[in-house]
């Protein structure tokens, strides 16, 4: 049985300009200890999907319209508030993109670090402090005993993200949701932080959902990857399959449009047009208007994710029917 099974998740935002279908029927599962990547451009719904699982969507304007997210026999989407609070921060933790704004500037690092322990475990403050110190050392903060008394502004961006990680992992969760954990950081610091998350994952045996816009980051980090576009999953596969045998034109186009370190000078491949406006209903495949392989049939019926090869799903109708072979 998977650790977390999400079925048909729909999160809509009811705004003045209409209903924005941010997540529109997303299903996936993650096993114990597995690393799952969710990639997509801004507005693809990848973060909203993560936030929805932990009840972090502001309601209103947001609303979970449908779906189930089974975690150890509990449906995260419909369970009562107190049940979710027992899981959130204890068994499922989250790291956010911006370490500059996600720590409380008025509180010392120590108070923020032990907060989850005091809430969930009812332990003594001195014991919690001991664990917090241990955790800070584990995430590579030198001189933890003095640094723990600092305020967030005394730390650099990379150090703050280390503190965020320590905070998320101090309760030894089964699942970590990392929402663009390195996007605000420099590349050399990004490499440090990814290495750290990997190391902590091995130490604690937890599962990780890594949400990112960067195909490069997921390629080295994840076992399996979902590609999202306009609130839907376009393709999902083991990492190697996703990169070397794409079964959806969007996935292929996204990879081709990245300037790689090895090629030079030639005209870059571009995806024509713009992502769709999610406040208007989309007929058929959301990518069809930008897809170079699309035909009239693509805009007729809403495509469904289908397992074409073992553990390799695509929502492209033409690939499913076999009348389109990519590459």
């Amino acid at each position: 049985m998977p650790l977390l099974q999400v079925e048909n998740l729909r999160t809509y935002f009811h705004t003045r300009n209409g209903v924005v279908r941010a997540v529109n029927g997303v299903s996936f599962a993650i096993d114990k200890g597995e690393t799952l990547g969710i990639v997509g451009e801004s507005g693809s719904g990848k973060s909203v999907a993560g936030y929805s699982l932990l009840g972090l969507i502001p309601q209103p304007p947001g609303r979970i319209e449908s779906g189930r997210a089974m975690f150890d026999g509990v449906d995260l989407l419909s369970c009562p508030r107190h049940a979710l609070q027992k899981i959130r921060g204890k068994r499922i933790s989250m790291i956010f993109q911006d370490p500059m704004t996600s720590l409380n500037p008025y509180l010392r690092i120590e108070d923020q670090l032990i907060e989850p322990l005091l809430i969930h475990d009812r332990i003594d403050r001195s014991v919690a402090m001991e664990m917090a110190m241990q955790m800070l050392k584990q995430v590579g903060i030198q001189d933890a005993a003095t640094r723990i008394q600092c305020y967030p502004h005394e730390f650099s961006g990379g150090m703050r993200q280390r503190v965020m990680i320590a905070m998320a992992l101090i309760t030894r969760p089964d699942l970590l949701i990392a929402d663009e954990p390195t996007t605000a950081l420099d590349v050399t610091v990004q490499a440090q932080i990814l290495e750290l998350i990997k190391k902590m994952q091995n130490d604690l045996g937890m599962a990780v959902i890594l949400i990112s816009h960067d195909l490069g980051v997921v390629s080295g980090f994840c076992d399996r990857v979902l590609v999202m576009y306009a609130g839907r999953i376009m393709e999902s596969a083991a990492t190697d399959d996703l990169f070397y045998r794409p079964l959806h034109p969007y996935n292929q186009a996204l990879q081709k449009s990245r300037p790689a370190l090895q090629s030079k000078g030639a005209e870059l491949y571009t995806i024509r047009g713009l992502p769709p406006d999610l406040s208007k209903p989309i007929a058929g495949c959301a990518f069809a208007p930008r897809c170079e392989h699309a035909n009239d049939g693509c805009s007729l019926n809403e495509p469904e994710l289908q397992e074409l090869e073992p553990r390799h799903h695509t929502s492209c109708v033409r690939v499913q029917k076999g009348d389109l072979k990519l590459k």
Partner: protein
Amino acid sequence: MSEAFLQLRNLKTHFPVERGLVFRRRVGTVKAVDGVSLAMAKGEILGLVGESGCGKSTLGRTVLHLVPPTEGVVVLAGRNLTQLGRDELREARADFQMIFQDPYASLNPRMTVFDALTEAMLAHRTIPAPELPARVSALLERVGLSPRCLKKYPHEFSGGQRQRIAIARALAVEPKLIIADEPVSALDVSIQSQIINLLFRLSREMGLTMIFISHDLSVVKHISDRIAVMYLGKIVELGSAADVVERPLHPYTKALVSAVPLPDPRRERQRQRVILPGDPPSPMNPPSGCPFHPRCPQSIEKCSQVVPAFETFRSNHEAACIRLKEIN
């Protein structure tokens, strides 16, 4: 290189750090740009890479004199910009333009596209009013926008389209030098490639000289002829784009190249990553000797004492490291 189109000689930009409301006193200096010398040929695209806070944006602004240099000289097409007075500098600005990172902030929300573009034109050139619409339309077409956009306001465009407008505005005065400061960082991957292609095509068609500032090495490698790597206000390596990325000399460049995540799982698994310890130090209080030595995996004692000079390793490829010959 006396025939160089753009020349920077020992350029320095220092910002005073002051404390106190009534009795302001100077408590330190941020050496954002600290002794940069460079020469660029006409039509060349130079990529400027480095981490945040390394001074790459300040260098770009200093070249255009948006920030006055503390020391040093900028010579553009034989004219020494540093010596110009205010009015002369204003006139000279027609020759160089800037494209900024955030197209949401760099366009005035109350000006239509037509107003924004004509403002730039009229500030520097005298163009008879009846000619304006035709010129602006031609400009829009050049950057891949429909002339029907003329009467629209910035909020009606997406990020990629706004960046196209910002590019058109920079081109409106027919500049010779363009400084593009992270022009694609705020854009999505699928839009980035459109803008990169556009900038590359325009620079070749119009013979523009361009400094392309970015933290993303793969983007810079794609568009640039040469790459300069900056660390803590200094250029530490300079060479052809292929050399710098494929055969980096300086330990910092090596770490930078190895840290770029590749969208290729097999290569990701195989590659040896150089993980640098710590964060870049504060430019207010830079380390002695080589600014990189506290994080450098190859540093020796001497590195903290000697400021490394630029050394040529192979033709058109130089770096500032005292162990250059030893470690390569």
